């Protein structure tokens, strides 16, 4: 993977390497549109984003991105089947109240989906629980138990078993850890559920 801008987040680069140029992409919980903007410039995608916060939505539109203000769980309902080539849920799964329902909708409206999330069974998290006795806090999950928006904590293994139970295919997967900052990372192949801080999955409807 080679990108002109080295300031791009490591996970964005992985996603970009999976997305076919010129495809139609929907990003759920797109924030200020950094990923979409990157995919638009780098992969020439036709982008749509959904974001609930007005200030972030307006930042996106000011950048020239097509973004809708709304709740991702409600907004996905309106789209016809197979409306997008990819539906992306980047670092947001941990905040979704009904992940099963949302993933089903994603698989309905997109040919493929991409899901990324922080791995809650990274060894440092395991150690924090063992040694400190407090609910763990990390760079990706920095909140206290009483103010966290992250209500669905999962591991890489959890997601794989979720795929089996729900019945969707994992087409590609990558586990990695960040080095010094977001823009620099390393793919983890050895015992990823212990050594990777994040997982990214490309998923699709089960082939019958």
């Amino acid at each position, binding site marked *: 993977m080679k990108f002109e801008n080295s300031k791009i987040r490591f996970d964005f680069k992985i996603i970009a390497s999976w997305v076919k140029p010129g495809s139609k992409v929907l990003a759920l919980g797109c924030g200020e549109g950094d990923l979409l903007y990157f995919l638009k410039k780098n992969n020439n995608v036709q982008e*749509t984003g959904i974001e609930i916060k*007005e200030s972030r939505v*307006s930042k996106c*539109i000011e950048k*020239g991105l*097509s973004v*809708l203000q709304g709740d991702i769980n409600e*907004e996905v309902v309106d*789209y*016809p089947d197979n409306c997008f080539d990819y539906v992306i849920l980047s670092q947001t799964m941990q905040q979704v109240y009904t992940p099963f329902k949302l993933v089903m909708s994603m698989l309905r409206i997109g040919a493929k989906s991409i899901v990324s999330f922080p791995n809650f069974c990274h060894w440092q998290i395991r150690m924090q629980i063992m040694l400190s006795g407090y609910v763990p806090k990390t760079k990706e999950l920095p909140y206290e138990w009483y103010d966290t928006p992250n209500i669905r904590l999962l591991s890489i293994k959890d997601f794989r078993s979720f795929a089996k139970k729900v019945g969707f295919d994992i087409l590609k997967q990558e586990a990695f850890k960040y080095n010094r900052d977001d823009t620099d990372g390393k793919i983890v192949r050895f015992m990823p559920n212990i050594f990777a801080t994040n997982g990214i999955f490309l998923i699709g409807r089960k082939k019958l």
Partner: protein
Amino acid sequence: MSEYIEHDGNGVSVGLVEKKYFIFADPPDEMMLESKIQFGPVQIAYETYGRLNEDKDNAVLVLHALTADAHAAGYHNENDAKPGWWEFMIGPGKGIDTKKYFVICSNILGSCMGSTGPSSINPKTKKAYGFDFPVVTIGDMVCAQKMLIDHLGIKRLHSLIGGSVGGMQVLEWCVRYPEMVASAIPLATTTRHSALAIAFNEVARQAIIADPNWNSGNYYSGKKPDLGLAVARMIGHITYLSDESMRVKFGRKLQDKSDFSFNFDADFQVESYLRHQGAKFVERFDANSFLYITRAADYFDLEKQHGKGSIVKAFSKTRAKFLVVSFTSDWLYPTYMSKNIVKALKKNKIDVSFCEIEAKWGHDAFLIPNRRLANLLKGFLESVEK
């Protein structure tokens, strides 16, 4: 709406502008109205700002609301006390950048600000039309605008932008002439009036009709129904504000007095304000035009006319890229109405952006200087491909 207009804070303006006129539908080639009445001639007043490029693909048509006019930006002469009604939005480097776009704003059919309406002279009788003027619709207004755009030699509009009744025209354009519209920005609008909106319009119309000077619409040679029109404006004005904006602006403050007068003078500031708005309005607007345009707005029903009752079907022909904007405190055309538009566009796989801007000023928020709105328009307009 003119009460919000201010000179641009940074002195940036399109400068001196000129009102122009386009006349068409001369008999026997009259315009066929939706009511199946042949009507003509029709005069449309319009203004333009910026330059039309060689390819004629940088035109932005601005559609005005109920009582505004073609004078959207700049000044008619150096001593004008106020600029056009969207001065903060239209100009060099502004939300609608006149360095990039050729901006057109025309006065709607049925109005009294230079386009043909009930106060215009009927060439057959040499008298004002009055109530002989046919009932016109939003579709008729858009047809007349299309004639103007054809006359200017423009095949495809880079964008259409309008708030409120102007937003209805934006939507009508998109379904009526889909091949002519590259992008559209309906602001604070709806595909059809709610019963609440029709109700307020009806009360306003009845205020005019109840004025003895109205005389079944024949008042152009005598006294005008100023009282009725002023009350109509007061009612309308309330619906353009919000509980919060009125609380902040007026509260229960008294006007130039420390206690109640124990009579029916304007004790409260809000009373005095509304009376002032009403009185000012009658100087510039015609009562019959108010009746006709509110009627057109009430009749507007995009799903009924273009989708056999289905809003999704109504948008099935449009291919424009959309930016839909609503305002949190707008209770005349609340956000759910904009969301209905967005939903229907999504179902048609149309590229649509939507933002509900936090604003306490009610329905009129799109007329009040708002950096967020200006930035949204700017970013969106630049993202539209030719």
